[in-house]
């Protein structure tokens, strides 16, 4: 197995150039998938027999929730790589993930609340999913707070990396304990869609939205990583070419 591609990823100028080249390849397909998903979800999909047109919130809630979790795992993975192989680029990726993940966690909470009000009659429910999302938001805020609180950039990178890894190990534990706690006090309130399985007309737009948001995340990441990598390179000569452009 040829590992050169991995070693090249450790080189900041290489990563920067790669990011510039790749961004449009993710940004445009993302826009397409999301547009198609919106069309399919808002227009083509039939109303749910129990929730009527209200179920269409899933087309923004599910991608937001998916993003919040996927971005955290990516952040923790990049952090681990940065710690083990001491790669500045990996730390740059982790730093880029945090604000993206936190904002989508917020979106997941808000859309979840808006979905809850017509369905359960209350804006907030202490159900396992929403509660876990709230805890996830605090994990993100803690990560960003730690980064902000440490002045030395290298120490900030490494300390927040330890925190991210500890956090990702805890996410399943926290989710399990919250689910356990919730099951003690009320019947599980799952946001069911009224039918045992989702018909294709409803499912396909959902998958398109999930894919579209994922591609969007990569495009965002590539943009942010460029800036983070620049900030970590003090005097390298390749910067001269980049900033002049």
């Amino acid at each position, binding site marked *: 197995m040829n590992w050169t591609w991995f070693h090249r990823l450790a080189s900041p100028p290489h990563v920067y150039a790669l990011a510039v080249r790749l961004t449009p390849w993710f940004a445009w397909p993302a826009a397409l998938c999301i547009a198609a998903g919106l069309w399919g979800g808002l227009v083509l999909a039939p109303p749910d027999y129990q929730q009527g047109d209200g179920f269409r919130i899933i087309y923004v809630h599910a991608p937001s929730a998916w993003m919040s979790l996927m971005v955290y795992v990516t952040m923790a993975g990049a952090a681990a790589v940065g710690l083990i192989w001491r790669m500045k680029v990996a730390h740059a990726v982790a730093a880029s993930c945090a604000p993206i993940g936190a904002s989508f966690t917020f979106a997941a909470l808000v859309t979840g609340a808006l979905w809850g009000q017509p369905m359960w009659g209350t804006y907030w429910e202490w159900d396992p999913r929403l509660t876990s999302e709230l805890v996830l938001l*605090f994990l993100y805020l803690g990560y960003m707070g730690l980064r902000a*609180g440490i002045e030395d950039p290298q120490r900030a990178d490494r*300390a927040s990396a*330890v925190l991210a*890894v*500890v956090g990702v190990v*805890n996410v399943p534990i926290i989710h*399990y*304990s*919250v689910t356990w706690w919730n099951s003690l006090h009320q019947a599980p309130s799952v946001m069911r869609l009224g039918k045992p399985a989702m018909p294709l007309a409803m499912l396909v737009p959902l998958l398109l939205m999930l894919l579209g948001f994922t591609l969007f995340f990569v495009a965002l990441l590539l943009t942010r990583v460029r800036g983070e990598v620049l900030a970590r390179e003090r005097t390298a000569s390749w910067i001269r070419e980049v900033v002049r452009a």
Partner: protein
Amino acid sequence: MNHSDGNIAQPLAALVAADPDRLSSVCQRASALEAVRLALQRDLQLAFRKRGQLVQPLAFFAMVTLLFPLAISPELARLRELAPGVLWVGALLGSLLALEFLFRDDAHDGTLEQYALSGQSLTALMVAKTIAHWLLTGLPLALMAPLAAVSLGVHTGALPGILFAVAVGSVALSLIGSIGAALTLGIKRSGALLSLLTLPLSLPVLIFGARATQLAIHGASFAAPLELLGALAVLGGTLAPLAAAAAVRISLE
């Protein structure tokens, strides 16, 4: 450097007993287990010199317990329903308060650096510090919990269970807290940040501990949540010192 030598143990222990501040320099010549014992002894002795500080988390816990009846109702029947929550939130916040003492003095006087450089396993020394921290804060909180419970209308039959649950839970809390404390070393006014980092990780302890307490108050078997608490303490015991050691090294770089 790590060979255990019975002849060294006695003079080392005497040295540390006489002057705990010199532990760091004698640490290098001890075996791993010796080093843990000496670090533990040192922390306990230094803490007893500042006995006043030890009382603060307990006083805080007592105050929090007082706040709820005043804010809600003096009826014992109502308070009994709320007791699990009040006890555990109070214990959690009290243990958070105590976390600042875990590394602060050692970071200040350079002992932590000595520990890192001593060639001893920093993870083992983290275990020692966490044990000392629990003995000085978690255990006293656990001993106080039955008193607080009585003030909230809990009957005496439930008290041993409450003591046990808080004792086990506070072990997990000390372990979890050591990670955040190590990460925020040297950050000025890190109290709020430390809470933000530690509380999400402590939620499972809160959930299982409060449930165990609730079951104990109702006279039912609280074995299941207690076992889960124990599992958290064991998991924390294996992973937290590693993470804390890594965090200390990063903070000292």
